[in-house]
């Protein structure tokens, strides 16, 4: 069926939006336009700060505090939303246009039960009576495959898990059977295994009711499953818009092409280490707890010289805790961490300077990893001085060398403060600080997950080059399997504080393996628009997401 036959539902024409920052109005959206027909799903993608959410909200005729529409028009089914009175807009919102927010946990009112919040819109807009809306809500919960649909609505938001809340919010958006729903990154805060369930539920319900939707996300693979058409935004400018398949197969714009290309980075496989080689770091039967709460159970793995071990798992699986045990921040209860065959003291206070120097750490949030009050030269210079005893001119020269190595121009960057750097540059400084100690082993804790894809790829390439040049060993903590595929030699899969499976990367990406690894791998969205459909057809809705995890 041709989409162009359907009547136009939303039309945004040449809209300019500004946001206030310190008494000044800065542009957020520069002249974007979009047309959405009835029953159509439009994907809005872009990196952080591209103005996706602002544009999505503008389609509802809504702006957040400190944001204003400078010019342009928004028409919803013939109604001019910019000129409309507050009462006219209120009449449309919730009834014909609904919104699904990024964080369901924060967007549900903690003081009321789910069902009370669900029925509010239909009752207030006089669509149905309260009892009808309640019955309908339970029916929607059932369709969205929420567990215990008859009861779950009578719980308070904090009593329900994140993935379930996100589906309950989708149900709430559906309560008045709107013509349009804005999905604002609905799965960004979720783990992959949970995400897939929510994606399936959203797609299913949107198709069933033939609702038009704007789906906002930064994840290309996700948008490929959900949208009929995709629109790419870059720093408030429109880049490109096309049908999903066209866009995936033949992107026109250079920026779009570069987004697609990121996925192609992959390192050649290294030969396996000698059987009798002493690993650089050997984690042996570690058990650890926070106070009385046990978090790690009998964790063991080796990291050999010049190789990268990726530790993967969802939030709460114990990846970062393992790193804390290795660095000595959390002394283990049982087991031992060996460095080149020698046991390290459990508490970092008891390790000597040489031992501390050998294990360096690069952090996820470059913002909190660099002292905002210190210039770059000092941040990198301190370990040089502390470990190598270099001072004055020699220290400065060494810092310049390190800056060159991380591909930042020394003259330009040495005196800057972290706040004057971009996210990727900050992460590079973090790498330089680790290198300054001249270690053999570096722990990389989710180093790319806070970065936009292009920048993340740059960091991965840099890390790979440094490894080749210096024979460094990496422990690479991540939840992103694409990153694992790009950089790892070996993979360790963790779940609930235990190692579920480990082995060379090539084996890990080839069946058969542990059911959890299998679930984790299969839940990662792929660029193929048919991926979700195929997966559901292959596995059935019962065998994805939390339901599948619970079965294990």
């Amino acid at each position, binding site marked *: 069926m041709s989409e162009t036959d359907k009547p136009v539902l939303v039309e945004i024409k040449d809209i300019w939006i500004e946001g206030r920052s310190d008494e000044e109005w800065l542009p957020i959206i520069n002249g974007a336009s979009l047309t959405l027909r009835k029953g159509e799903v439009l994907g809005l993608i872009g990196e952080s700060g591209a103005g996706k959410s602002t544009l999505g909200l503008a389609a*509802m005729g*809504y702006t*957040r*505090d400190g944001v204003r529409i400078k010019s342009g028009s928004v028409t919803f089914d013939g109604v001019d939303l910019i000129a409309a009175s507050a009462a006219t*807009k*209120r*009449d*449309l*919102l*919730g*009834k014909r246009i*609904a*919104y699904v*927010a990024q*964080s369901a946990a*924060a*967007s*549900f*009112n*903690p*003081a*009321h039960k789910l069902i009370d919040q669900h029925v*509010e*819109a239909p009752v*207030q*807009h006089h669509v149905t009576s309260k009892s009808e809306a309640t019955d309908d809500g339970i029916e929607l919960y059932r369709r969205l495959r929420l567990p215990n649909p008859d009861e779950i609505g009578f*719980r*308070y938001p*904090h*009593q329900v898990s994140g993935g379930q809340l996100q589906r309950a919010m989708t149900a709430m958006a559906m309560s008045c059977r709107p013509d349009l729903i804005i999905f604002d990154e609905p799965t960004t805060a979720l783990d992959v295994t949970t995400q897939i369930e929510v994606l399936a539920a959203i797609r299913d319900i949107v198709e069933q009711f033939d609702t038009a939707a704007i789906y906002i996300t930064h994840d290309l693979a996700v948008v490929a499953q959900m949208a009929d058409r995709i629109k790419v935004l870059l720093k408030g400018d429109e880049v490109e818009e096309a049908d999903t398949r066209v866009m995936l197969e033949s992107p026109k714009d250079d920026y779009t092409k570069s987004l697609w290309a990121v996925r192609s980075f992959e390192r050649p496989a290294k030969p396996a280490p000698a059987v009798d080689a002493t690993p650089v770091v050997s984690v042996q039967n570690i058990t650890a707890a926070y106070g009385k709460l046990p978090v790690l159970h009998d964790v063991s793995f080796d990291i050999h010289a010049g190789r990268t071990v990726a530790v993967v798992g969802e939030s709460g699986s114990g990846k970062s805790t393992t790193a804390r045990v290795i660095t000595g921040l959390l002394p283990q209860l049982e087991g031992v961490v060996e460095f080149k065959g020698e046991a390290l003291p459990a508490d970092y206070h008891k390790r000597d300077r040489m031992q501390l120097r050998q294990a360096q750490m690069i952090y996820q949030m470059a913002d909190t990893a660099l002292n905002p009050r210190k210039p770059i030269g000092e941040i990198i210079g301190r370990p040089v001085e502390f470990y190598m005893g270099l001072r004055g001119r020699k220290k400065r020269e060494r810092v310049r060398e390190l800056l060159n190595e991380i591909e930042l121009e020394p003259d330009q960057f040495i005196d800057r403060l972290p706040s004057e750097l971009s996210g990727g540059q900050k992460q590079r400084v973090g790498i330089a600080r680790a290198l300054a100690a001249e270690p053999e082993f570096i722990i990389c804790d989710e180093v790319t997950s806070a970065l936009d894809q292009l920048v993340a790829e740059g960091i991965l390439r840099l890390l790979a080059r440094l490894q080749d040049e210096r024979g460094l060993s990496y422990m690479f903590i991540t939840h992103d399997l694409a990153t694992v595929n790009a950089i790892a030699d070996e993979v360790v899969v963790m779940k609930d504080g235990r190692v579920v499976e480990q082995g060379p990367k090539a084996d890990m990406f080839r069946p058969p393996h542990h059911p959890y690894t299998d679930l984790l791998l299969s839940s990662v969205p792929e660029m193929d628009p048919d991926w979700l459909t195929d997966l559901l057809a292959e596995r059935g809705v019962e065998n994805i997401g939390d339901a599948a995890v619970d079965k294990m």
Partner: protein
Amino acid sequence: MHPVLKIVIQRLLLGLLTLLAVSIIIFVAVNSLPGDFAQAILGQSATPEAVAAIRRDLGLDQPAVTRYFQWLGDMLTGNLGISFAQANFASFVGTSAESGSGPVTVAQQIAPRFENTMFLAGVTAVIAVPMSLTLGILAALFRNSVFDRTANIASLSAVSSPEFFLAYILILFLAVLHPILPSLSNIYEGMPFGERLYRTLLPALTLTLVVTAQMMRMTRAAIINLLASPYIEMARLKGISPMRVIVKHALPNALAPIINVIALNLAYLITGVVVVEVVFVYPGIGQLFVDSVKNRDIPVVQACCLIFAGAYILLNLMADVLSILSNPRLRHPK
């Protein structure tokens, strides 16, 4: 046991513990005085024998720990001791404590004044709480408007001014230039309620000014903080009327911060009351406290201090417990 009950009991015990700690601090502070009560009562020229006699009489020859528990027991049973101003050497030596016609005890001295102070605080709270909540919510709703900015400047000025400045300004305008209210609050027992209220009004207004400004600012901040929550945006995006957004979505969550604001400011009243009572010569516990400080009347100072601290702890405890009770996360555990 219901987890909320558990937390509440924990807090109550903690409050009790704090009170105990405070009593120790007060006891230690008072007992670090050079010499002791006996010396203080008798003066420098007393004979060592007389001092020793009184020491025995008052149990001052006991070790400090024993004396502390004795004192604590007395405090708890309402026996606050005898004021130095009342107890002179003669009364100690001449009449024994049991004879009944003895000096006025601290408890007898404090009781009526305590009642007066509670009356003043009560009148203040009745005016200040509804007014400041209304103003605070209005300022939050119309934030950055002319009203909000004016209210901000005015309340900031009121918060920054010493109580006695506000008191004299009010006296100047409401008692001297336009003689509407009396500038002296000489109330006495058995005074008709209307008359008493009339005489209490000016000190109460002074305290109201101080407390309202503070409370209004805190309410405004709490409400603005709340209105920025994603669930309020969600409610707006559901097309719900502004009134309903406030009543149904903001208010239930605003309860805890507002209770906190009220309790904190009522606790603040305790300090404010001292200065204001002195300015208006209001016969409350604050004025008694200041007089006793000047006369170094230790038993009274000690008792007043304990009462003030107790009230302060109690109010904070109440705020704590009420905000726990109003938290849906704790009320409906997983």
